[in-house]
């Protein structure tokens, strides 16, 4: 019997959630960090959404947040003109890196030794985290604010998306632009999938998939509403889209067919990401909440439990809740 999706609402933030990122799978599970305009990014257990801690220290809206692969370090980019590096186990602030304007994006290399930052001052910076006192390597090139800066191709190259409607591929050693992709509209999100070298870019009402090394277009899909964020499933079966109409859309990546759409958020969806095992995806919204959605609806995973109809009315079902999808934060 077909089941109806029950999203799990993670409360705690008091302003819009603008960015989120998962870690890789660690011996302690995987983790999720959320960036919020309330200036207090939060760390959560990835498969349940349980709050672990809040990183306190920023004095402005946090626009970008990321975790290193092992989820031992976190980095955040904020409107207080700093990017901060945190110990993701204790919650302590390790480093505060001063910038000249709002910082929008932060990204660790695979070995967590370097941090890439980009923001409104249009300058790409690379910090050597083993030498925090040293000046970062700075590179200019974009003609307006950088929205997203990501390491790619085994940290040998860098991908950036900016308000100048371009996505650029940079060579890390020369810091020269290797390739530029122009767009008609501002790029709203960019996701890099190392396994398979796929780049997911959203702009206007389109989600486009590119080869991350050559920047050649693989395919593009038009969606019903203005897209704010899109994410590709690790096994490349599905991709999910969130945008202005408050809904989440799930598409078949191979056939480009729209499979499902879900209502639930009370505001535009700003960010959406698949978990590293592909079993769920998380969305962050203007309504201040994060929601976790199952990829395979009805499967037992995390806090979701597959229950046969007979079990729902039995004596033993005290611990199970049959909840309506719109759970208030």
């Amino acid at each position, binding site marked *: *019997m077909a*089941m109806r999706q*029950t999203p799990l609402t993670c409360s705690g933030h008091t302003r819009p959630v603008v960015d989120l990122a998962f870690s890789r799978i660690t011996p302690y599970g995987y983790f999720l960090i959320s960036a919020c305009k309330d200036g207090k990014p939060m760390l959560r257990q990835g498969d349940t959404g349980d*709050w672990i801690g809040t990183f306190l220290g920023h004095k402005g809206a946090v626009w970008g947040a990321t975790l290193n692969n092992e989820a031992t370090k976190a980095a955040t980019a904020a409107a207080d003109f700093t990017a901060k590096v945190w110990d993701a186990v204790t*919650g302590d602030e390790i480093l505060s890196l001063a910038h000249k304007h709002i910082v929008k994006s932060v990204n660790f290399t695979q070995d967590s030794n370097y941090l890439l930052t980009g923001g409104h001052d249009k300058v790409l910076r690379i910090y050597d985290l083993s030498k925090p006192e040293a000046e970062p390597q700075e590179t200019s090139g974009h003609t307006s604010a950088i929205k997203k800066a990501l390491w790619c191709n085994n940290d040998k190259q860098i991908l950036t998306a900016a308000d100048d409607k371009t996505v650029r591929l940079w060579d890390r050693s020369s810091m020269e632009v290797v390739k530029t992709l122009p767009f008609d509209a501002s790029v709203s999100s960019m996701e890099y999938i190392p396994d398979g070298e796929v780049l997911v870019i959203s702009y206007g009402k389109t989600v486009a998939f590119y080869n991350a090394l050559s920047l050649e277009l693989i395919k593009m899909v038009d969606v019903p509403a203005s897209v704010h964020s899109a994410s590709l499933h690790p096994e490349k079966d599905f991709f999910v889209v969130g945008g202005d109409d408050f809904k989440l859309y799930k598409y078949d990546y191979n056939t480009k067919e729209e499979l499902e759409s879900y209502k639930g958020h009370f505001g535009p969806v700003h960010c959406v990401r698949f978990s590293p095992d592909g079993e769920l995806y998380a969305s962050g919204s203007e309504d201040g909440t994060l929601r976790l959605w199952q990829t395979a609806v009805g499967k037992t995973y995390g806090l979701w439990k*597959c229950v046969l109809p007979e079990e729902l009315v039995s004596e033993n079902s005290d611990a*199970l809740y049959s909840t309506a999808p719109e759970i208030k934060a």
Partner: protein
Amino acid sequence: MKTPVCVLRLPRGPDGTSRGFDPSSARYQALCTPTISASGPVDCVDLRSEQRARSFLRERYLRSLIAMVKRNVKFTMYEKVKVDAVFAGSDIDILNFQVEDLETPLGVQKEALIRCPDVISYSFEIDSSL
């Protein structure tokens, strides 16, 4: 009519009293080493004496906070700010100090919260009779 998927419980939210990062969690215990790193087998004696020193210092700091209550404190803060106030208390993570009669260029603020990360240093006089 589709049945909604059952959930065991809702995700836990912030506890409202602290910033989290539970030191008793398995991950914290495994990944947080004390400042004395062990190059060989862990030296229990060193760990014990470090822990004793930490306890002593923490207790002394907490007692200093108690001694500070109702006293005039001079705060030196960033942006060349120096203010005087009467200390009322601190929160559990020592992130905010509650003060009274905070003397600011705009006047005396009856009650205020000072963010500890904004403070560079503070000083107060201990009653010599104690």
